[in-house]
């Protein structure tokens, strides 16, 4: 059984129908990329998995249980962790307090603070700084660090590299690749298709709220016409 199995979810914002019968799955220890143009419904898909948006129809089976319709805090406790596009670091709390907050409801086998700081030494240096004083790259590290300290079974990354300098992107990419090698499961949404394909084992393409393609990262890399059709501008 897959870690995440999504069957026919539909989501709305008010009257506007955004997702149409979306199916997808994520296996444990797999990195899956969800790609699509601006406004295709990528963030909405992640939000629907996490319960931020309640799907109007369909099933979200996570770790063997149907979580569709559950509130985000319950889904988070079951081990799914959204790292949102805006990162949403708590600006008035220090780096350490942000991690502490994330660790409050984490399971017993979660990462220790030391392990997170070892993994992101920059966070250790900044541990007393307030969230709002961090650079974009540091905020992203902290956002991922919050997921790690919760020992999330599945981390949903929404455009983790957006707005970051190339050198920072390279470092973060290396960190994510290392986590993936160690068995961390990711579902990643990224505008930077090259970066996403380097990280992912498997890809989905979404267009106007419909899933239009599924295949391995290599297969997609070798199909410029598919990329052109669904991702080209």
């Amino acid at each position: 059984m897959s870690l995440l199995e999504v069957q026919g979810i539909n989501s709305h914002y008010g009257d506007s129908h955004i997702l149409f019968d979306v199916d997808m799955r994520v296996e444990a220890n797999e990195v899956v990329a969800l790609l699509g143009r601006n406004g295709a419904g990528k963030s909405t898909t992640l939000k629907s998995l996490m319960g931020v948006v309640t799907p109007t129809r369909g099933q979200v089976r996570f770790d063997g249980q149907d979580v569709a319709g559950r509130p985000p805090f319950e889904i988070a406790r079951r081990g799914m962790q959204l790292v949102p596009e805006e990162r949403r670091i708590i600006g008035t709390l220090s780096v350490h307090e942000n991690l502490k907050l994330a660790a409050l409801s984490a399971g017993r086998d979660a990462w220790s603070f030391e392990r997170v700081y070892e993994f992101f030494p920059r966070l250790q240096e900044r541990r007393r700084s307030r969230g709002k004083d961090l650079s974009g790259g540091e905020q992203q590290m902290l956002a991922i660090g919050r997921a790690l300290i919760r020992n999330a079974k599945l981390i949903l990354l929404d455009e983790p590299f957006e707005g970051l300098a190339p050198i920072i992107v390279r470092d973060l990419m290396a960190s994510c690749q290392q986590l993936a090698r160690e068995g961390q499961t990711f579902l990643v949404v990224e505008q930077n298709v090259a970066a996403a394909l380097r990280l992912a084992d498997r890809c989905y393409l979404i267009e106007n709220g419909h899933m239009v393609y599924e295949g391995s990262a290599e297969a997609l890399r070798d199909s410029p016409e598919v990329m052109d059709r669904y991702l080209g501008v």
Partner: protein
Amino acid sequence: MPSPSLFFAQLFNGLALGSLLALVSAGLTIILGTLGVLNFAHGAMFMVAAYVAWWTMVATQSYVLAALAACAVLVVLGMIIERGIIQFYYSRPPEDQILVTFGIGVVLVEVIRVIFGGISHSMPVPDWGSGIVNMGFLIYPKYRVLALGIIAVALLALYLVLYRTRLGLIVRAGIEDQRMVGLLGINVKRTFLAVFALGSLAVGFAGAVYAPIIAVNPEMGEQLLVQSFVVVVIGGLGSFPGAVIGGLIAGEILTLTTMFNPAYSHVMLYLAMAVVLVLRPQGLFGVEGRE
């Protein structure tokens, strides 16, 4: 021009009023920041606490019992109000929340009026607080000086709850971004009762400590409510440091203006609020919240 001793006395009065405003506004601001509800019953709750303290003091002669009774009654009252009424208004529009909390305030005032009448009572000062202290530049009632210290300790205790406990961490984070706190596996709604009780405790303690200083009557909380709204705006919505600094600033503005012309004291307070709103719309210590 006022004489130096009058000036110092007023400065000190400002500090006394300011510390009261700080504690009352701190309760108001954490409730507003966490629950998203502006509690118009806050002033009436202060009044109820003062009545409980006055009544207990008269009945038992014990100041400690009076303060404990006021705190206990207010915590229970706060929990009843939150569970019994306010929790049903979290997803309602702000007008409804204002109306219902305003209504709760009116009911509390009228219940007290029915039980104790409309006249003013004065709570006796405890023995250890009677007399005066001579501070050289200023002769001041002893209890008022001690009250300042007691309120400072209460503010420190509140600070420790907010900055050193698990609940405090969730409260501070939730004031800024409740959705993210939820995404981190925390059921924020479950803290609402505790936060309302904590805010009620703050205003209850303030009511007990100030009952011997001011006239205890059913309307005593009205002005305080308006003043603490201004403090919350000046200090920044949801900010504890903002409530403390804002409270002290408001206390000094009110008393120093009174020294020259009492008619202008509230005008000056609103002016200060307007200046802050123009220069820093989120208040002195406020954060730009989400959503």
